[in-house]
Structure formats: structure tokens, C-alpha cells
């Protein structure tokens, strides 16, 4: 049976395979001593050999998705995940597996050089096995990277929607950058959430930092305003630039049901009036603001 021969080699020549493998890895440049200690790599190699030998003990070597290969897959997943996070390239990660070809092939050759037929078969199945395992590591590597990117995207999204409390019962959300539908969704969610938390009655949506407003963005803004109203708060849109005002009119977007102000200051003073609050500045206390409930 094909698999048992590879298994025999793995079992009987473990230490040779390991040292040859380490040497091969050093030659291929996949070892990054700055990022990983040699002892750690040696341990990983030893464990991989042990698990692979266990996996090939019974049954085929071709299906790496079978339950026999689960420990091997888990090891490789752990390996490539940590390598991906440590900053190894996909090639360097995959070379961990691919550099094992050389020692395995030479061991096979030593053992079966008298029977070319068997040797060819064995080489073929060994190649298939290692290719699959190598591709698996690349896949995990890629996936880990994607997870990192996704997380960063999420964090940026949250960072880019800071809801600030301007006054008792007044919150503001200064928006900066382009509004796509995913981002507006987050904007809407955070704004509404903060309204619940602070029980704010007025929310100011400041779009001074938004370069362009198209119909879709305008529609999203209107949706946010409506949702705020449904919750029992009022929403003002401020910071509408002249060009944006022109675009909105040209596009025929109906903002008649929405309170709009040209500046955040305007919106804030509207909000204060709405809540019967006022700010008094006297010459002696120019910096002290006091609110009086009307």
C-alpha cells in the first residue's frame, strides 16, 4: 500500500529527515532568524513529522481534509496564523512545507532506488500530499491577513463616527470623508445608540467634512433623520457647503422635512433655543458659559 511506505520512511528516518529539512529551509531562505528562534522551528518540524507520521499510518495520503489529518491541519493552521501575524510572506510560510520535499524525496530515493516504478509512485503521492499541505498553509495565511484587514476596517469605521455630547440633551456627530452605504449604516447605528444612552433630544449631523453628496448619500441622511425622529429626538443637518447645496437642489432631493443649518454653530444655537437654554457671556467671565433653563 502506497501510504504505508511514506509512513515507514517518516517513522524510521525521523531524525535524518528533520536535520535535512532544517538545512533545506536554511538554504531556501525561508528561515527568518530575526522573527523566529531556531529552537522553536526545530520543535515545529519535529511535531509536524510526528503528526504527519500518525496521519499517514493508516489510509491514504491524498485527502488532507479527512479526520486523520485533523491534527496536522491544526498544527499548520496555528503555524501559518502566527507566521502571518509575525509578518512572514505567504511564500515564506508555504516554504515551510515545500522545503520538506527535498529531504523526503532523497529518503524515498535511498530506500527505493532499485524499484523505479515504486519510487515514481511514491514520489507522486508525496508530491500531491505536500502540495496540498502547502496550499493549505497559504490559504490560512491569506485568511489571517484578511481577518486583520477586516478588523482594521471595523475599527476605522468606529473611530470615524465619534458622537460627541455638546450640551445636556444635545449630541453632535461630525462626519469626515466619503459616505458609502456601509459607513452610513454605522453612522446611523452609533448615533441612535448614543441618543438612547445620553437621552439626547437633539442630534446634530455635521457634514462639513463630507466632500460630495450624491442622491444615495442624501437619501441615507434623510433616513437617519427619520430614524432619529422615530426614536423621539430631533435631527439637524449642519455644515452644508455651497456646492453641496447646489448639488442637492440640482439632484432634486427633497430636504423640506429636515432642519438644515449652514454651520455647526448655527445648528447648536438652534438646538439651545429649541431646548429653551441660553449661554450668557459677560465681559468679566468671558470664558464661563452658564445655562439657564427657561
Amino acid at each position: 500500500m502506497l501510504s504505508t511506505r511514506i509512513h515507514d520512511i517518516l517513522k524510521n528516518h525521523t531524525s535524518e529527515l528533520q536535520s535535512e529539512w532544517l538545512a533545506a529551509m536554511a538554504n531556501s531562505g525561508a528561515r527568518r532568524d530575526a522573527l523566529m528562534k531556531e529552537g522553536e522551528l526545530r520543535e515545529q518540524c519535529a511535531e509536524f513529522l510526528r503528526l504527519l507520521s500518525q496521519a499517514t499510518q493508516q489510509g491514504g495520503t491524498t485527502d488532507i481534509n479527512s479526520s486523520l489529518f485533523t491534527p496536522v491541519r491544526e498544527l499548520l493552521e496555528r503555524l501559518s496564523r502566527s507566521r502571518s501575524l509575525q509578518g512572514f510572506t505567504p511564500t515564506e510560510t508555504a516554504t515551510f512545507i515545500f522545503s520538506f520535499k527535498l529531504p523526503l524525496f532523497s529518503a524515498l530515493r535511498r530506500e527505493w532506488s532499485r524499484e523505479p516504478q515504486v519510487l515514481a509512485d511514491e514520489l507522486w503521492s508525496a508530491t500531491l500530499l505536500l502540495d496540498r499541505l502547502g496550499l493549505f498553509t497559504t490559504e490560512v495565511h491569506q485568511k489571517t491577513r484578511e481577518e486583520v484587514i477586516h478588523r482594521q476596517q471595523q475599527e476605522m469605521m468606529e473611530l470615524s463616527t465619534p458622537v460627541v455630547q455638546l450640551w445636556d440633551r444635545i449630541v453632535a456627530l461630525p462626519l469626515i470623508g466619503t459616505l458609502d452605504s456601509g459607513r452610513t449604516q454605522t453612522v446611523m447605528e452609533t448615533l441612535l445608540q448614543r441618543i438612547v444612552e445620553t437621552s439626547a433630544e437633539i442630534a446634530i449631523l455635521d457634514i462639513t467634512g463630507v466632500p460630495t453628496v450624491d442622491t444615495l448619500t442624501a437619501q441615507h441622511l434623510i433616513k437617519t433623520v427619520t430614524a432619529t425622529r422615530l426614536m423621539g429626538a430631533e435631527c439637524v443637518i449642519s455644515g452644508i457647503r455651497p456646492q453641496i447645496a447646489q448639488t442637492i437642489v440640482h439632484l432634486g432631493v427633497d430636504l423640506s422635512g429636515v432642519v438644515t443649518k449652514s454651520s455647526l454653530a448655527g445648528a447648536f444655537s438652534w438646538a439651545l433655543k429649541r431646548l429653551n437654554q441660553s449661554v450668557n457671556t459677560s465681559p468679566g467671565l468671558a470664558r464661563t458659559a452658564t445655562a439657564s433653563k427657561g
Partner: protein
Amino acid sequence: MERISILRMGRILIVTIQVDMHDQIAMALQDDLTARIVETGARGVLIDISSLEVVDSFIGRILGNIATMSRVLDAQTVVVGMQPAVAITLVELGMSLPGIRTALNLEKGMALLQASIEADEAAIEVSDAILEE
């Protein structure tokens, strides 16, 4: 069948929805509420939906209907405590519920209702005075 209780507090009826709104419960609420408005001569209806986590278009419509019916029966409706998720769902469904007044919580809704009922009555007094003159 489960029914949502309607509490009376002076001239205001208070409904707190604390169960999942099935269509049938919503229909029953609509019936009960209109009956109670007529029976008690209530001037205001306060519906607290703060424990409601899921809405569909039907429930949205029922809320709109309740507001309209109350107005016909001379009572004002305020819906309070809508959760962000519910608000987003309703907006995405295209239901802006233009006829409904809203407030953040029961306390604010109550204040809003009281104030507008008083304003209503003051307006009536003024018009009476004008008529007398």
C-alpha cells in the same frame, strides 16, 4: 388569547407593549384601545414600545392606524422608547410614520402629552372668550 393591558392615568391612557407583537395581539390592541378612548374620554394615548425588539411593516402600520384613529376620537398619540434597531428597520421598510409623535422615554412622552393637551385646552378657552366678546 394574550392581551395588552391599557392603564388609565387621568386623561391619558398608557399602553406598554412587553410581549412580541403578533398580528392578532396588535389587532386586539387596536380594538381595545379605541373602545377605551371612547369609554373614558381620554385625551391622550401613550404607547411605550421600549421592550419591543422586532417590528415588521404590519406592526408599523398598526401603530400608524392607532395614531390616526385616536386623532379621530380626539386623543393625541405619542409613541415612546423606540429602540435604534426598530427605528432603522422601520426606516428601511420605508415607513416614516409621519402621523406619529415620538419621545425618547415615558417621562418625556408624558410631559409632551400633558403640554399639548393643556395647549389644546387653552386654545379652546381663548376661542370661547373671543366668542363671548
